[in-house]
Protein backbone atom coordinates (compact mmCIF):
# COMPACT_ATOMS: atom_id res chain seq x y z
CA UNK A 1 0.00 0.00 0.00
CA UNK A 2 2.75 2.46 0.92
CA UNK A 3 4.54 1.80 -2.31
CA UNK A 4 1.41 2.71 -4.20
CA UNK A 5 0.79 5.90 -2.22
CA UNK A 6 4.03 7.48 -3.24
CA UNK A 7 3.71 6.88 -6.94
CA UNK A 8 0.06 7.88 -7.07
CA UNK A 9 0.41 11.41 -5.86
CA UNK A 10 1.52 13.04 -9.11
CA UNK A 11 -1.13 11.33 -11.24
CA UNK A 12 -3.92 12.32 -8.91
CA UNK A 13 -2.86 15.93 -9.25
CA UNK A 14 -2.55 15.68 -12.98
CA UNK A 15 -6.17 14.56 -13.21
CA UNK A 16 -7.52 17.52 -11.36
CA UNK A 17 -6.18 19.80 -14.01
CA UNK A 18 -6.85 17.82 -17.14
CA UNK A 19 -10.22 16.27 -16.35
CA UNK A 20 -12.42 16.98 -19.34
CA UNK A 21 -15.86 16.54 -17.81
CA UNK A 22 -16.37 19.69 -15.81
CA UNK A 23 -19.83 18.86 -14.47
CA UNK A 24 -19.12 19.20 -10.78
CA UNK A 25 -21.04 21.91 -8.98
CA UNK A 26 -24.62 20.74 -8.98
CA UNK A 27 -23.96 17.44 -7.21
CA UNK A 28 -23.90 18.89 -3.73
CA UNK A 29 -27.33 17.91 -2.49
CA UNK A 30 -27.36 17.95 1.27
CA UNK A 31 -30.55 16.16 2.22
CA UNK A 32 -32.72 18.11 4.64
CA UNK A 33 -30.56 21.15 5.15
CA UNK A 34 -31.75 23.89 2.84
CA UNK A 35 -28.71 26.12 2.85
CA UNK A 36 -25.72 25.25 0.70
CA UNK A 37 -23.19 26.53 3.18
CA UNK A 38 -22.43 24.14 6.01
CA UNK A 39 -21.33 25.73 9.30
CA UNK A 40 -17.62 25.54 9.75
CA UNK A 41 -17.75 23.20 12.73
CA UNK A 42 -19.61 20.60 10.63
CA UNK A 43 -16.94 20.52 7.99
CA UNK A 44 -14.91 17.37 8.16
CA UNK A 45 -12.00 17.86 5.83
CA UNK A 46 -9.61 15.49 7.52
CA UNK A 47 -12.06 12.63 7.96
CA UNK A 48 -13.43 13.07 4.47
CA UNK A 49 -10.01 13.01 2.86
CA UNK A 50 -9.09 9.87 4.76
CA UNK A 51 -12.30 8.25 3.62
CA UNK A 52 -11.93 9.05 -0.07
CA UNK A 53 -8.15 8.58 -0.15
CA UNK A 54 -8.12 4.85 -0.96
CA UNK A 55 -10.63 5.33 -3.76
CA UNK A 56 -8.84 8.33 -5.25
CA UNK A 57 -5.42 6.67 -5.03
CA UNK A 58 -6.59 3.39 -6.59
CA UNK A 59 -8.51 5.08 -9.40
CA UNK A 60 -5.57 7.37 -9.98
CA UNK A 61 -3.16 4.49 -10.44
CA UNK A 62 -5.34 1.97 -12.22
CA UNK A 63 -7.68 4.09 -14.34
CA UNK A 64 -6.50 7.67 -14.72
CA UNK A 65 -2.83 6.93 -15.14
CA UNK A 66 -3.41 4.20 -17.76
CA UNK A 67 -5.83 6.46 -19.63
CA UNK A 68 -3.52 9.45 -19.73
CA UNK A 69 -0.63 7.14 -20.54
CA UNK A 70 -2.60 5.59 -23.41
CA UNK A 71 -3.22 9.00 -24.97
CA UNK A 72 0.42 9.90 -24.47
CA UNK A 73 1.73 6.65 -25.97
CA UNK A 74 -0.56 6.90 -28.98
CA UNK A 75 1.71 9.69 -30.25
CA UNK A 76 4.77 7.48 -30.12
CA UNK A 77 6.10 4.58 -32.07
CA UNK A 78 7.03 1.93 -29.53
CA UNK A 79 9.15 -1.01 -30.46
CA UNK A 80 11.21 -3.54 -28.59
CA UNK A 81 14.30 -2.75 -30.59
CA UNK A 82 14.73 0.98 -30.17
CA UNK A 83 13.62 3.94 -28.07
CA UNK A 84 10.13 5.28 -28.46
CA UNK A 85 9.96 7.89 -31.16
CA UNK A 86 7.46 10.73 -31.37
CA UNK A 87 5.35 10.30 -34.49
CA UNK A 88 2.45 12.67 -33.80
CA UNK A 89 -0.81 11.47 -35.27
CA UNK A 90 0.71 8.81 -37.53
CA UNK A 91 -0.91 5.90 -35.73
CA UNK A 92 -4.28 7.57 -35.83
CA UNK A 93 -3.83 7.78 -39.57
CA UNK A 94 -2.77 4.10 -39.80
CA UNK A 95 -5.78 2.94 -37.85
CA UNK A 96 -8.20 5.19 -39.69
CA UNK A 97 -6.96 3.99 -43.10
CA UNK A 98 -6.93 0.31 -42.13
CA UNK A 99 -9.86 -1.52 -43.75
CA UNK A 100 -9.73 -4.17 -41.02
CA UNK A 101 -10.55 -1.55 -38.40
CA UNK A 102 -13.71 -0.55 -40.26
CA UNK A 103 -14.56 -4.15 -40.93
CA UNK A 104 -14.39 -4.90 -37.22
CA UNK A 105 -16.55 -1.86 -36.43
CA UNK A 106 -19.12 -3.05 -38.92
CA UNK A 107 -19.06 -6.53 -37.36
CA UNK A 108 -19.48 -5.03 -33.90
CA UNK A 109 -22.43 -3.01 -35.14
CA UNK A 110 -24.06 -6.02 -36.79
CA UNK A 111 -23.53 -7.98 -33.61
CA UNK A 112 -25.19 -5.24 -31.54
CA UNK A 113 -28.08 -5.12 -34.04
CA UNK A 114 -28.62 -8.84 -33.54
CA UNK A 115 -28.33 -8.86 -29.77
CA UNK A 116 -29.86 -5.63 -28.47
CA UNK A 117 -33.27 -5.66 -30.23
CA UNK A 118 -33.68 -9.34 -29.39
CA UNK A 119 -32.88 -8.70 -25.73
CA UNK A 120 -35.24 -5.71 -25.55
CA UNK A 121 -38.17 -7.51 -27.16
CA UNK A 122 -37.61 -10.61 -25.07
CA UNK A 123 -37.27 -8.56 -21.89
CA UNK A 124 -40.42 -6.58 -22.63
CA UNK A 125 -42.45 -9.73 -23.26
CA UNK A 126 -41.11 -11.54 -20.21
CA UNK A 127 -41.52 -8.53 -17.94
CA UNK A 128 -45.12 -7.99 -19.13
CA UNK A 129 -45.81 -11.63 -18.44
CA UNK A 130 -44.16 -11.70 -15.01
CA UNK A 131 -46.14 -8.61 -14.00
CA UNK A 132 -49.36 -10.61 -14.36
CA UNK A 133 -48.23 -13.47 -12.12
CA UNK A 134 -48.98 -14.06 -8.47
CA UNK A 135 -46.36 -12.89 -6.02
CA UNK A 136 -44.80 -16.27 -5.45
CA UNK A 137 -44.72 -17.23 -9.13
CA UNK A 138 -43.26 -13.82 -9.96
CA UNK A 139 -40.47 -14.32 -7.42
CA UNK A 140 -39.68 -17.70 -8.93
CA UNK A 141 -39.62 -16.32 -12.46
CA UNK A 142 -37.46 -13.36 -11.51
CA UNK A 143 -34.82 -15.67 -10.05
CA UNK A 144 -35.08 -18.02 -13.02
CA UNK A 145 -34.48 -15.35 -15.63
CA UNK A 146 -31.65 -13.91 -13.57
CA UNK A 147 -29.65 -17.13 -13.19
CA UNK A 148 -28.13 -17.09 -16.72
CA UNK A 149 -26.89 -13.54 -16.10
CA UNK A 150 -24.39 -14.69 -13.45
CA UNK A 151 -22.78 -17.30 -15.67
CA UNK A 152 -19.44 -16.11 -17.00
CA UNK A 153 -18.95 -15.47 -20.72
CA UNK A 154 -16.29 -18.16 -20.75
CA UNK A 155 -18.66 -20.80 -19.41
CA UNK A 156 -21.44 -19.59 -21.72
CA UNK A 157 -19.05 -19.72 -24.67
CA UNK A 158 -18.04 -23.28 -23.79
CA UNK A 159 -21.66 -24.43 -23.39
CA UNK A 160 -22.65 -22.99 -26.74
CA UNK A 161 -19.61 -24.36 -28.57
CA UNK A 162 -20.76 -27.70 -27.26
CA UNK A 163 -24.35 -27.08 -28.36
CA UNK A 164 -23.07 -26.13 -31.85
CA UNK A 165 -21.05 -29.33 -32.32
CA UNK A 166 -21.85 -31.38 -35.42
CA UNK A 167 -23.69 -33.90 -33.24
CA UNK A 168 -24.90 -31.22 -30.82
CA UNK A 169 -28.35 -30.02 -29.79
CA UNK A 170 -28.55 -27.25 -32.38
CA UNK A 171 -28.04 -29.70 -35.22
CA UNK A 172 -30.39 -32.21 -33.66
CA UNK A 173 -33.05 -29.51 -33.73
CA UNK A 174 -32.24 -28.59 -37.32
CA UNK A 175 -32.35 -32.28 -38.16
CA UNK A 176 -35.90 -32.52 -36.84
CA UNK A 177 -36.84 -29.82 -39.33
CA UNK A 178 -35.37 -32.02 -42.03
CA UNK A 179 -32.16 -30.11 -42.68
CA UNK A 180 -28.61 -31.39 -42.68
CA UNK A 181 -26.13 -30.55 -39.94
CA UNK A 182 -24.68 -27.06 -40.06
CA UNK A 183 -21.13 -26.14 -39.02
CA UNK A 184 -22.51 -23.20 -37.07
CA UNK A 185 -19.23 -21.64 -35.99
CA UNK A 186 -17.29 -22.47 -39.14
CA UNK A 187 -19.65 -21.01 -41.68
CA UNK A 188 -19.23 -17.35 -42.49
CA UNK A 189 -22.91 -16.56 -42.55
CA UNK A 190 -23.92 -18.35 -39.37
CA UNK A 191 -20.94 -17.68 -37.10
CA UNK A 192 -21.93 -14.19 -35.95
CA UNK A 193 -25.58 -15.08 -35.18
CA UNK A 194 -24.27 -18.20 -33.43
CA UNK A 195 -22.12 -16.02 -31.17
CA UNK A 196 -25.04 -13.61 -30.67
CA UNK A 197 -27.25 -16.31 -29.12
CA UNK A 198 -25.17 -16.74 -25.94
CA UNK A 199 -24.88 -12.94 -25.71
CA UNK A 200 -28.68 -12.71 -25.74
CA UNK A 201 -28.91 -15.53 -23.23
CA UNK A 202 -26.47 -13.80 -20.87
CA UNK A 203 -28.12 -10.40 -21.25
CA UNK A 204 -31.88 -10.84 -21.19
CA UNK A 205 -32.20 -11.52 -17.44
CA UNK A 206 -30.98 -8.20 -16.12
CA UNK A 207 -32.92 -6.30 -18.80
CA UNK A 208 -36.08 -8.18 -17.85
CA UNK A 209 -35.71 -7.28 -14.19
CA UNK A 210 -35.10 -3.63 -15.02
CA UNK A 211 -38.12 -3.51 -17.35
CA UNK A 212 -40.23 -5.27 -14.75
CA UNK A 213 -39.32 -2.63 -12.17
CA UNK A 214 -40.43 -0.03 -14.70
CA UNK A 215 -43.71 -1.80 -15.50
CA UNK A 216 -44.59 -2.13 -11.82
CA UNK A 217 -44.26 1.64 -11.51
CA UNK A 218 -46.92 2.28 -14.16
CA UNK A 219 -50.22 3.14 -12.43
CA UNK A 220 -52.81 0.38 -12.72
CA UNK A 221 -55.44 2.98 -13.61
CA UNK A 222 -53.85 3.46 -17.06
CA UNK A 223 -54.46 -0.18 -17.88
CA UNK A 224 -57.91 -0.26 -16.37
CA UNK A 225 -59.18 2.67 -18.39
CA UNK A 226 -57.61 1.19 -21.52
CA UNK A 227 -59.43 -2.07 -20.88
CA UNK A 228 -62.69 -0.19 -20.45
CA UNK A 229 -62.04 1.34 -23.84
CA UNK A 230 -61.63 -2.16 -25.21
CA UNK A 231 -57.87 -2.11 -25.84
CA UNK A 232 -56.36 -5.57 -26.25
CA UNK A 233 -53.01 -6.72 -24.90
CA UNK A 234 -51.01 -5.55 -27.91
CA UNK A 235 -52.68 -2.16 -27.94
CA UNK A 236 -52.00 -1.73 -24.23
CA UNK A 237 -48.38 -2.67 -24.77
CA UNK A 238 -48.04 -0.34 -27.74
CA UNK A 239 -49.81 2.68 -26.27
CA UNK A 240 -49.21 2.40 -22.54
CA UNK A 241 -46.33 0.11 -21.60
CA UNK A 242 -43.79 1.16 -24.23
CA UNK A 243 -44.36 4.93 -23.93
CA UNK A 244 -44.25 4.71 -20.13
CA UNK A 245 -41.03 2.73 -20.24
CA UNK A 246 -39.40 5.18 -22.62
CA UNK A 247 -36.58 6.13 -20.27
CA UNK A 248 -35.97 2.57 -19.20
CA UNK A 249 -35.84 1.41 -22.81
CA UNK A 250 -33.54 4.28 -23.70
CA UNK A 251 -31.23 3.33 -20.87
CA UNK A 252 -31.21 -0.33 -21.88
CA UNK A 253 -30.68 0.58 -25.52
CA UNK A 254 -27.69 2.83 -24.88
CA UNK A 255 -26.00 0.58 -22.34
CA UNK A 256 -26.88 -2.48 -24.46
CA UNK A 257 -25.37 -1.11 -27.66
CA UNK A 258 -22.24 0.26 -26.00
CA UNK A 259 -21.62 -2.95 -24.07
CA UNK A 260 -22.50 -5.33 -26.90
CA UNK A 261 -20.31 -3.60 -29.45
CA UNK A 262 -17.44 -4.10 -26.99
CA UNK A 263 -18.08 -7.82 -26.54
CA UNK A 264 -15.06 -9.93 -27.21
CA UNK A 265 -14.81 -12.73 -24.68
CA UNK A 266 -17.50 -14.77 -26.42
CA UNK A 267 -15.91 -14.64 -29.89
CA UNK A 268 -12.45 -14.97 -28.33
CA UNK A 269 -13.33 -18.31 -26.79
CA UNK A 270 -15.81 -19.52 -29.42
CA UNK A 271 -14.21 -18.62 -32.75
CA UNK A 272 -11.22 -16.33 -32.09
CA UNK A 273 -12.61 -14.00 -34.72
CA UNK A 274 -13.02 -16.55 -37.48
CA UNK A 275 -14.07 -17.84 -39.89
CA UNK A 276 -12.45 -15.27 -42.20
CA UNK A 277 -12.84 -12.54 -39.54
CA UNK A 278 -16.62 -12.99 -39.54
CA UNK A 279 -16.75 -12.64 -35.75
CA UNK A 280 -13.83 -10.26 -35.33
CA UNK A 281 -15.52 -7.65 -33.13
CA UNK A 282 -13.66 -4.36 -32.57
CA UNK A 283 -12.29 -5.27 -29.15
CA UNK A 284 -11.23 -8.71 -30.28
CA UNK A 285 -9.46 -7.15 -33.23
CA UNK A 286 -7.68 -4.75 -30.85
CA UNK A 287 -6.89 -7.51 -28.37
CA UNK A 288 -5.47 -9.79 -31.02
CA UNK A 289 -3.42 -7.07 -32.68
CA UNK A 290 -1.94 -6.35 -29.25
CA UNK A 291 -1.04 -9.99 -28.73
CA UNK A 292 0.20 -10.47 -32.21
CA UNK A 293 3.66 -9.17 -31.32
CA UNK A 294 4.59 -7.55 -34.61
CA UNK A 295 6.60 -4.35 -34.26
CA UNK A 296 4.46 -1.34 -33.36
CA UNK A 297 1.53 -3.59 -32.51
CA UNK A 298 1.32 -1.93 -29.10
CA UNK A 299 1.04 1.61 -30.45
CA UNK A 300 -1.35 0.48 -33.11
CA UNK A 301 -3.73 -1.40 -30.88
CA UNK A 302 -3.89 1.20 -28.14
CA UNK A 303 -4.58 3.90 -30.68
CA UNK A 304 -7.34 1.73 -32.09
CA UNK A 305 -8.74 1.25 -28.58
CA UNK A 306 -8.84 4.99 -27.98
CA UNK A 307 -10.53 5.59 -31.33
CA UNK A 308 -13.09 2.93 -30.48
CA UNK A 309 -13.71 4.68 -27.18
CA UNK A 310 -14.56 7.82 -29.18
CA UNK A 311 -16.71 5.92 -31.70
CA UNK A 312 -18.71 4.26 -28.93
CA UNK A 313 -19.26 7.58 -27.19
CA UNK A 314 -20.53 9.05 -30.46
CA UNK A 315 -22.88 6.12 -31.06
CA UNK A 316 -24.34 6.50 -27.56
CA UNK A 317 -24.97 10.17 -28.20
CA UNK A 318 -26.61 9.51 -31.58
CA UNK A 319 -28.92 6.87 -30.12
CA UNK A 320 -29.75 9.17 -27.26
CA UNK A 321 -30.61 12.02 -29.64
CA UNK A 322 -32.74 9.86 -31.93
CA UNK A 323 -34.78 8.27 -29.17
CA UNK A 324 -35.26 11.41 -27.15
CA UNK A 325 -36.44 13.37 -30.19
CA UNK A 326 -39.33 10.97 -30.70
CA UNK A 327 -42.71 12.06 -29.46
CA UNK A 328 -43.94 10.39 -26.32
CA UNK A 329 -47.27 10.42 -24.58
CA UNK A 330 -45.80 10.63 -21.12
CA UNK A 331 -43.09 13.14 -20.36
Amino acid at each position, binding site marked *: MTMIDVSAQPTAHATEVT*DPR*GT*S*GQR*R*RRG*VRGSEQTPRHL*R*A*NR*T*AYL*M*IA*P*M*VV*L*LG*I*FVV*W*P*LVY*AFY*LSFFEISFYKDAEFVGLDFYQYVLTDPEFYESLWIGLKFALMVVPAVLVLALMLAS*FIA*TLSKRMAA*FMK*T*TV*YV*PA*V*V*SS*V*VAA*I*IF*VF*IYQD*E*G*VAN*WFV*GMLGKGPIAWLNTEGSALPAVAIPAIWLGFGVST*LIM*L*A*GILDIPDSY*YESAKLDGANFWQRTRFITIPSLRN*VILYLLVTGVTLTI*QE*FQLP*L*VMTNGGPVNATNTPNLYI*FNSFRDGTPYATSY*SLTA*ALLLFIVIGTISIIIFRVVSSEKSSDA
Partner: protein
Amino acid sequence: MNRQWYAPRRLLSYLLAAVIAVTALFPLAWMAISGFKGQTEVLRSPFQFFPDVWNLDNYRAILEDPAFVRAMGITFLGAVIFTVASLVVNSMAAYAFARLDFAGKGLWWVVCITPMFVPAMAILLTSFVVVSKLGMLDTLAVLIVPGVAASAQMFFLRQFYLNMPSAVEEAALIDGATRWQIFLRIFVPQSLGPFVVVGIASFLAYWNSYVWPVLVVSNPDLTQIMQYLATFRSARGNEWGMLMAGSTLAALPTIVLVLVFQRYIVNGVRLAGLK
Protein backbone atom coordinates in the same frame (compact mmCIF):
# COMPACT_ATOMS: atom_id res chain seq x y z
CA MET B 1 -53.97 -5.26 -13.10
CA ASN B 2 -56.85 -7.65 -12.78
CA ARG B 3 -55.73 -10.91 -11.22
CA GLN B 4 -59.08 -12.69 -10.92
CA TRP B 5 -58.42 -15.18 -13.59
CA TYR B 6 -60.38 -18.14 -14.74
CA ALA B 7 -58.82 -21.50 -13.98
CA PRO B 8 -57.86 -22.42 -17.59
CA ARG B 9 -56.22 -19.05 -18.07
CA ARG B 10 -54.21 -19.50 -14.87
CA LEU B 11 -53.17 -22.98 -15.97
CA LEU B 12 -52.04 -21.51 -19.27
CA SER B 13 -49.89 -18.93 -17.53
CA TYR B 14 -48.29 -21.62 -15.35
CA LEU B 15 -47.57 -23.59 -18.48
CA LEU B 16 -46.01 -20.55 -20.14
CA ALA B 17 -43.92 -19.87 -17.04
CA ALA B 18 -42.68 -23.46 -17.09
CA VAL B 19 -41.77 -23.21 -20.79
CA ILE B 20 -39.85 -19.98 -20.20
CA ALA B 21 -38.03 -21.40 -17.18
CA VAL B 22 -37.03 -24.56 -19.06
CA THR B 23 -35.82 -22.56 -22.07
CA ALA B 24 -33.84 -20.09 -19.96
CA LEU B 25 -32.19 -22.79 -17.91
CA PHE B 26 -31.73 -25.32 -20.69
CA PRO B 27 -28.10 -24.47 -21.51
CA LEU B 28 -27.14 -24.87 -17.85
CA ALA B 29 -29.08 -28.08 -17.42
CA TRP B 30 -27.59 -29.42 -20.63
CA MET B 31 -24.10 -28.60 -19.38
CA ALA B 32 -24.66 -30.31 -16.02
CA ILE B 33 -26.26 -33.39 -17.59
CA SER B 34 -23.56 -33.73 -20.24
CA GLY B 35 -21.05 -33.89 -17.41
CA PHE B 36 -22.63 -37.20 -16.44
CA LYS B 37 -22.09 -38.73 -19.87
CA GLY B 38 -19.22 -40.93 -20.84
CA GLN B 39 -16.87 -40.11 -23.71
CA THR B 40 -18.80 -42.17 -26.26
CA GLU B 41 -22.15 -40.88 -25.19
CA VAL B 42 -21.58 -37.15 -24.87
CA LEU B 43 -21.82 -36.40 -28.59
CA ARG B 44 -23.83 -39.31 -29.84
CA SER B 45 -26.09 -39.51 -32.76
CA PRO B 46 -29.01 -40.13 -32.57
CA PHE B 47 -29.39 -37.45 -30.00
CA GLN B 48 -30.35 -38.37 -26.47
CA PHE B 49 -31.10 -35.98 -23.66
CA PHE B 50 -30.36 -38.07 -20.59
CA PRO B 51 -27.43 -40.45 -20.29
CA ASP B 52 -28.06 -44.21 -20.30
CA VAL B 53 -26.07 -44.50 -17.13
CA TRP B 54 -25.47 -41.57 -14.81
CA ASN B 55 -21.74 -41.63 -14.81
CA LEU B 56 -19.82 -39.78 -12.09
CA ASP B 57 -16.40 -40.30 -13.68
CA ASN B 58 -16.10 -36.82 -15.19
CA TYR B 59 -17.00 -35.03 -12.01
CA ARG B 60 -14.74 -37.29 -10.01
CA ALA B 61 -11.82 -36.81 -12.40
CA ILE B 62 -12.23 -33.03 -12.35
CA LEU B 63 -12.40 -32.93 -8.58
CA GLU B 64 -9.28 -35.04 -8.41
CA ASP B 65 -7.37 -32.75 -10.76
CA PRO B 66 -5.12 -30.73 -8.43
CA ALA B 67 -4.98 -27.89 -10.96
CA PHE B 68 -8.76 -27.54 -10.86
CA VAL B 69 -8.97 -27.62 -7.08
CA ARG B 70 -6.17 -25.09 -6.83
CA ALA B 71 -7.83 -22.79 -9.38
CA MET B 72 -11.16 -22.96 -7.55
CA GLY B 73 -9.49 -22.33 -4.20
CA ILE B 74 -7.29 -19.43 -5.27
CA THR B 75 -10.14 -17.81 -7.25
CA PHE B 76 -12.48 -18.13 -4.29
CA LEU B 77 -9.88 -16.65 -1.95
CA GLY B 78 -9.22 -13.80 -4.37
CA ALA B 79 -12.93 -13.16 -4.87
CA VAL B 80 -13.58 -12.95 -1.14
CA ILE B 81 -10.68 -10.55 -0.51
CA PHE B 82 -11.71 -8.54 -3.57
CA THR B 83 -15.33 -8.30 -2.41
CA VAL B 84 -14.44 -7.21 1.11
CA ALA B 85 -11.85 -4.69 -0.10
CA SER B 86 -14.32 -3.24 -2.62
CA LEU B 87 -16.96 -2.82 0.04
CA VAL B 88 -14.56 -1.06 2.38
CA VAL B 89 -13.08 1.30 -0.20
CA ASN B 90 -16.28 2.15 -2.05
CA SER B 91 -18.55 2.52 0.96
CA MET B 92 -16.13 4.84 2.77
CA ALA B 93 -15.91 7.12 -0.25
CA ALA B 94 -19.69 6.88 -0.74
CA TYR B 95 -20.30 7.96 2.84
CA ALA B 96 -17.91 10.89 2.54
CA PHE B 97 -19.52 12.12 -0.68
CA ALA B 98 -23.05 11.66 0.62
CA ARG B 99 -22.72 12.92 4.16
CA LEU B 100 -19.66 15.09 4.65
CA ASP B 101 -18.81 18.52 3.45
CA PHE B 102 -15.21 19.19 2.64
CA ALA B 103 -13.00 21.45 0.61
CA GLY B 104 -12.77 20.51 -3.05
CA LYS B 105 -15.65 18.04 -2.84
CA GLY B 106 -16.93 18.80 -6.35
CA LEU B 107 -13.53 18.26 -7.87
CA TRP B 108 -12.90 14.96 -6.06
CA TRP B 109 -16.37 13.83 -7.06
CA VAL B 110 -15.49 14.28 -10.73
CA VAL B 111 -12.22 12.40 -10.21
CA CYS B 112 -14.04 9.47 -8.61
CA ILE B 113 -17.02 9.24 -10.96
CA THR B 114 -15.42 9.79 -14.40
CA PRO B 115 -13.79 6.32 -14.50
CA MET B 116 -17.31 4.88 -14.82
CA PHE B 117 -17.28 6.06 -18.44
CA VAL B 118 -13.88 4.65 -19.38
CA PRO B 119 -14.27 1.33 -21.23
CA ALA B 120 -11.97 -1.43 -20.01
CA MET B 121 -10.41 -2.01 -23.42
CA ALA B 122 -9.27 1.61 -23.73
CA ILE B 123 -6.98 1.17 -20.73
CA LEU B 124 -6.34 -2.57 -20.82
CA LEU B 125 -2.98 -2.34 -22.56
CA THR B 126 -1.60 0.56 -20.53
CA SER B 127 -2.94 -0.99 -17.31
CA PHE B 128 -0.80 -3.96 -18.17
CA VAL B 129 2.22 -1.67 -18.61
CA VAL B 130 1.45 0.07 -15.32
CA VAL B 131 1.13 -3.10 -13.24
CA SER B 132 4.28 -4.54 -14.78
CA LYS B 133 6.18 -1.33 -13.97
CA LEU B 134 4.92 -1.61 -10.39
CA GLY B 135 6.32 -5.14 -10.29
CA MET B 136 2.90 -6.62 -9.65
CA LEU B 137 2.83 -9.23 -12.43
CA ASP B 138 2.20 -12.79 -11.27
CA THR B 139 0.99 -11.87 -7.80
CA LEU B 140 -2.38 -12.28 -6.17
CA ALA B 141 -2.40 -8.50 -5.74
CA VAL B 142 -2.45 -7.81 -9.48
CA LEU B 143 -5.68 -9.79 -9.77
CA ILE B 144 -7.32 -7.98 -6.87
CA VAL B 145 -6.06 -4.44 -6.38
CA PRO B 146 -6.68 -2.78 -9.79
CA GLY B 147 -10.43 -3.42 -9.74
CA VAL B 148 -11.18 -2.68 -6.10
CA ALA B 149 -12.17 0.97 -6.54
CA ALA B 150 -15.35 0.91 -8.65
CA SER B 151 -17.07 4.18 -9.46
CA ALA B 152 -20.41 2.61 -10.29
CA GLN B 153 -20.58 0.84 -6.94
CA MET B 154 -19.53 3.93 -5.06
CA PHE B 155 -22.27 5.85 -6.88
CA PHE B 156 -24.85 3.22 -5.99
CA LEU B 157 -23.94 3.29 -2.29
CA ARG B 158 -23.84 7.07 -2.24
CA GLN B 159 -27.41 7.25 -3.56
CA PHE B 160 -28.43 4.99 -0.70
CA TYR B 161 -26.64 7.08 1.92
CA LEU B 162 -28.11 10.31 0.54
CA ASN B 163 -31.56 8.97 1.30
CA MET B 164 -30.88 7.93 4.87
CA PRO B 165 -32.53 10.16 7.49
CA SER B 166 -30.11 12.51 9.22
CA ALA B 167 -31.78 12.72 12.66
CA VAL B 168 -29.83 9.87 14.25
CA GLU B 169 -26.60 11.14 12.77
CA GLU B 170 -27.16 14.61 14.22
CA ALA B 171 -28.05 13.24 17.63
CA ALA B 172 -24.87 11.16 17.60
CA LEU B 173 -22.81 14.20 16.65
CA ILE B 174 -24.24 16.16 19.58
CA ASP B 175 -23.34 13.24 21.85
CA GLY B 176 -19.77 13.66 20.69
CA ALA B 177 -19.48 10.72 18.31
CA THR B 178 -16.88 11.04 15.59
CA ARG B 179 -17.74 10.68 11.91
CA TRP B 180 -15.94 7.36 11.87
CA GLN B 181 -18.06 6.07 14.72
CA ILE B 182 -21.22 7.27 12.98
CA PHE B 183 -20.18 5.58 9.77
CA LEU B 184 -19.23 2.29 11.40
CA ARG B 185 -21.99 2.06 14.02
CA ILE B 186 -24.96 3.68 12.26
CA PHE B 187 -24.47 3.56 8.51
CA VAL B 188 -22.68 0.27 7.98
CA PRO B 189 -25.17 -1.82 9.99
CA GLN B 190 -28.03 -0.35 7.96
CA SER B 191 -26.36 -1.03 4.64
CA LEU B 192 -26.86 -4.78 4.53
CA GLY B 193 -29.19 -4.72 1.49
CA PRO B 194 -27.03 -2.48 -0.71
CA PHE B 195 -23.87 -4.21 0.52
CA VAL B 196 -25.25 -7.56 -0.64
CA VAL B 197 -26.09 -6.10 -4.05
CA VAL B 198 -22.71 -4.52 -4.72
CA GLY B 199 -20.89 -7.34 -2.95
CA ILE B 200 -22.39 -9.91 -5.29
CA ALA B 201 -21.55 -7.72 -8.26
CA SER B 202 -17.93 -7.61 -7.06
CA PHE B 203 -17.78 -11.32 -6.45
CA LEU B 204 -19.17 -12.10 -9.90
CA ALA B 205 -16.85 -9.62 -11.59
CA TYR B 206 -13.86 -11.29 -9.98
CA TRP B 207 -15.01 -14.88 -10.35
CA ASN B 208 -15.96 -14.50 -14.01
CA SER B 209 -12.97 -12.46 -15.15
CA TYR B 210 -10.87 -14.04 -17.82
CA VAL B 211 -8.93 -11.60 -19.96
CA TRP B 212 -7.19 -9.75 -17.15
CA PRO B 213 -5.88 -12.95 -15.50
CA VAL B 214 -4.72 -14.24 -18.89
CA LEU B 215 -2.70 -11.06 -19.38
CA VAL B 216 -1.14 -10.67 -15.96
CA VAL B 217 -0.77 -14.16 -14.50
CA SER B 218 1.26 -17.02 -15.88
CA ASN B 219 2.18 -18.76 -12.62
CA PRO B 220 0.15 -22.01 -12.48
CA ASP B 221 -0.36 -21.53 -8.73
CA LEU B 222 -2.34 -18.38 -9.46
CA THR B 223 -4.33 -19.62 -12.45
CA GLN B 224 -7.91 -18.39 -12.13
CA ILE B 225 -10.86 -20.66 -12.70
CA MET B 226 -12.00 -19.16 -16.03
CA GLN B 227 -8.42 -19.23 -17.24
CA TYR B 228 -8.26 -22.89 -16.27
CA LEU B 229 -11.44 -23.70 -18.16
CA ALA B 230 -10.33 -21.88 -21.30
CA THR B 231 -6.92 -23.57 -21.42
CA PHE B 232 -8.68 -26.83 -20.81
CA ARG B 233 -10.65 -26.29 -23.98
CA SER B 234 -7.69 -25.60 -26.21
CA ALA B 235 -5.53 -28.33 -24.73
CA ARG B 236 -8.07 -31.13 -24.43
CA GLY B 237 -10.82 -29.76 -26.63
CA ASN B 238 -12.44 -33.07 -27.36
CA GLU B 239 -13.15 -34.27 -23.87
CA TRP B 240 -16.54 -32.65 -23.74
CA GLY B 241 -17.77 -34.62 -20.76
CA MET B 242 -14.88 -33.40 -18.64
CA LEU B 243 -15.21 -29.85 -19.88
CA MET B 244 -18.93 -29.78 -19.14
CA ALA B 245 -18.35 -31.19 -15.66
CA GLY B 246 -15.64 -28.60 -15.01
CA SER B 247 -17.80 -25.74 -16.32
CA THR B 248 -20.69 -26.90 -14.16
CA LEU B 249 -18.56 -26.89 -11.04
CA ALA B 250 -17.07 -23.51 -11.97
CA ALA B 251 -20.51 -21.95 -12.47
CA LEU B 252 -21.94 -23.49 -9.32
CA PRO B 253 -20.66 -20.92 -6.77
CA THR B 254 -22.16 -18.01 -8.70
CA ILE B 255 -25.51 -19.76 -9.11
CA VAL B 256 -25.63 -20.71 -5.43
CA LEU B 257 -24.87 -17.10 -4.58
CA VAL B 258 -27.87 -15.93 -6.60
CA LEU B 259 -30.19 -18.49 -5.08
CA VAL B 260 -29.13 -17.58 -1.55
CA PHE B 261 -29.42 -13.83 -2.04
CA GLN B 262 -32.16 -13.73 -4.71
CA ARG B 263 -34.42 -11.45 -2.67
CA TYR B 264 -31.76 -8.77 -2.33
CA ILE B 265 -30.76 -8.93 -5.98
CA VAL B 266 -34.26 -8.51 -7.31
CA ASN B 267 -34.86 -5.59 -4.95
CA GLY B 268 -31.44 -4.23 -5.80
CA VAL B 269 -32.60 -3.51 -9.33
CA ARG B 270 -35.24 -1.23 -7.84
CA LEU B 271 -32.75 0.27 -5.41
CA ALA B 272 -30.61 1.25 -8.36
CA GLY B 273 -33.46 3.62 -9.16
CA LEU B 274 -33.75 4.28 -12.87
CA LYS B 275 -35.81 7.40 -13.16
